[in-house]
């Protein structure tokens, strides 16, 4: 029996060795087992055999084709991996069959695991961690764009231009957007939950715009945590959504969110660097400050296609030149169908041409300041009493909507096109830790026109037409009006 075992073990050696010495090795085994009878001696024999096997089998394989090994070692340049061929015998049919079955099994296992076993994570989330933060980037609580470190209400156009289209549409429903993306993989325990709750409560108490509701919400969060209402939330997204619900139960504020981010948030809101400004300036120069088209249409109708409201400090000259070239028009069409917003200062700067006296421009994101009034009249400007048409689309967003909303409310312009996108969040983003952050409104301007602004619902046009037909319609309206005169 033991000889059979040893004969079987001998098969571990390469065939060349077995052919030359296999029989002799077996013979030696027989000799030893005959001579070394008794339990202890047998034990020693097997210990010898096994340790011998462990040492000599690898050595045999390594030296089985010394010529070949030395040849390949000779060929191999430094640092380049290479393969050694150990076996010198052709593959048996059994080995081929076994290999085939094993490959198929591996393939099947792999595909089954891919389809069912593992939780799906989009590849893009693995490749570009920043991409899982589109909400943070395009959020109105944007703190990463130049010049907006403190002035969080602004929609920085600099970040817009580098942003893939479509992402910017998410801020209208930030909490949902984040939760729908990837499920949080971080497992939260009670200590971490308490820490988040405590941090959120502190932020509410310190920063929330409504001094009564802030502490109430903070107390509610703490009470829920104490009662164990949060205990089931181990998933980051769910926990964030739960806390958001708890806060809104106290006061339904759609701008108040607590969000979870799968990839770590940057340690501080990165302050815009000189490089960012240089880049912004460069892009603006290249794109003519997003003043895409300035022309005089038939019947002396001025047409301006503006795709953002850029930084005044960079684009003032361009804006002035554009308005100067339209100064003698009898009517003016602002095409904001592709305008994704920008700086309130530029909104005000452009609107100034349309008034002969300082006019208050309501902006829900900012408390009323001197900047809230246009610097009208603009010297030399002749457009203050000319008919104004503004072309809108669903893409018209944020700062562009402020332009639309205020001109509409002031009855200074006729809006032609579609209802706008509806981006008017105000507030600041507070980082709690690597994965949690909170967006809360901190300032609130009083809307002189109505209870609602354009947040979520957009600005309704005066003349509702398809975006594609907006220009024709506006031109016809302008012509009709000019002929009446």
């Amino acid at each position, binding site marked *: 029996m033991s000889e059979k075992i040893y004969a079987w073990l001998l098969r571990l050696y390469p065939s060349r060795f077995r052919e*030359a010495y296999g029989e002799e*090795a077996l013979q030696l085994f027989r000799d*030893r087992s005959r001579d070394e009878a008794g339990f202890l001696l047998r034990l020693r024999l097997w210990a*010898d055999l096994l340790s011998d096997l462990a*040492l000599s089998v690898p050595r045999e394989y390594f*030296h089985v084709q010394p010529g070949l090994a030395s040849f390949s070692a000779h060929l191999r340049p430094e640092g380049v991996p290479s393969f050694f061929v150990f076996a010198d015998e052709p593959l048996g049919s059994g080995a081929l069959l076994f290999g085939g079955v094993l490959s198929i099994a591996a393939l099947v296992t792999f595909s089954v695991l891919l389809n069912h076993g593992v939780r799906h994570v989009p590849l893009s989330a693995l490749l570009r961690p920043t991409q899982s933060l589109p909400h943070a980037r395009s959020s109105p609580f944007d703190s990463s764009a130049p010049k907006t470190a403190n002035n969080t209400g602004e929609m920085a156009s600099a970040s817009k231009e580098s942003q893939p289209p479509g992402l910017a549409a998410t801020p209208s429903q930030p909490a949902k957007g984040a939760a729908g993306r990837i499920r949080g993989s971080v497992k939260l325990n009670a200590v971490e939950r308490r820490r988040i709750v405590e941090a959120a409560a502190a932020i509410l108490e310190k920063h929330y715009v409504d001094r009564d509701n802030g502490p109430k919400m903070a107390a509610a969060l703490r009470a829920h945590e104490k009662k164990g209402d949060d205990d089931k939330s181990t998933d980051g997204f769910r926990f964030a959504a739960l806390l958001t619900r708890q806060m809104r139960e106290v006061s339904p504020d759609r701008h108040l969110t607590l969000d979870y981010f799968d990839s770590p948030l940057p340690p501080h809101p990165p302050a815009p660097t000189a490089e960012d400004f240089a880049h912004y300036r460069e892009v603006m120069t290249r794109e003519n400050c997003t003043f895409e088209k300035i022309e005089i249409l038939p019947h002396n109708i001025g047409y301006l296609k503006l795709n953002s409201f850029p930084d005044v400090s960079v684009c003032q000259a361009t804006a002035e030149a554009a308005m100067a070239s339209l100064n003698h028009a009898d009517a003016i069409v602002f095409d904001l169908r592709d305008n994704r917003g920008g700086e309130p200062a530029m909104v005000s700067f452009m609107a100034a041409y349309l008034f002969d006296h300082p006019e208050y421009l309501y902006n829900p994101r900012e408390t009323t300041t001197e900047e809230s009034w246009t610097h009208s009249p603009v010297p030399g400007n002749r457009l203050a009493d000319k008919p104004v048409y503004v072309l809108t689309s669903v893409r018209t967003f944020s700062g562009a909507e402020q332009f639309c909303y205020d001109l509409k409310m002031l009855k200074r312009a006729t809006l032609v096109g579609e209802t706008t996108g509806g981006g008017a969040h105000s507030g600041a983003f507070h980082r709690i830790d690597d994965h949690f952050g909170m967006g809360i409104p901190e300032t609130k301007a009083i809307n002189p026109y109505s209870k609602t602004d354009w947040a979520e619902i957009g600005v309704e046009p005066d003349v509702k037409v398809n975006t594609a037909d907006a220009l024709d319609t506006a031109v016809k309206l302008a012509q009709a009006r000019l002929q009446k005169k």
Partner: protein
Amino acid sequence: MPKQKLNPLPSAAFQILLALAGEDLHGYGIMRQVAEQTGGRMRLGPGTLYSSIQTLFEAKLIEETDAREDANLGTERRRYYRLTASGRKLARTEAERLADLLRVARSKKILRGEYV
């Protein structure tokens, strides 16, 4: 490659050469002889034994003789191994190298001894 494998000479290979210095032996005989000359410290397993034999054989340090029976071990025919001239020379060179080493060790007071 055998030359590289034998330089430095592995102790198993040296012991086999020494075992064969006295008389021609078969595999089991070599194993017992090595065990005896090392005071039982080195028991060559079949794998080590025959791979060393293979290497020594390929380097022409030992040669095989015609198989014959060992009267003490029944009627099985066994292959015997014999030291070649170059094998004997290598064994002597190795022994001298070790002797030199010993001398150095003694001069450094690491090892005490009367002779060599």
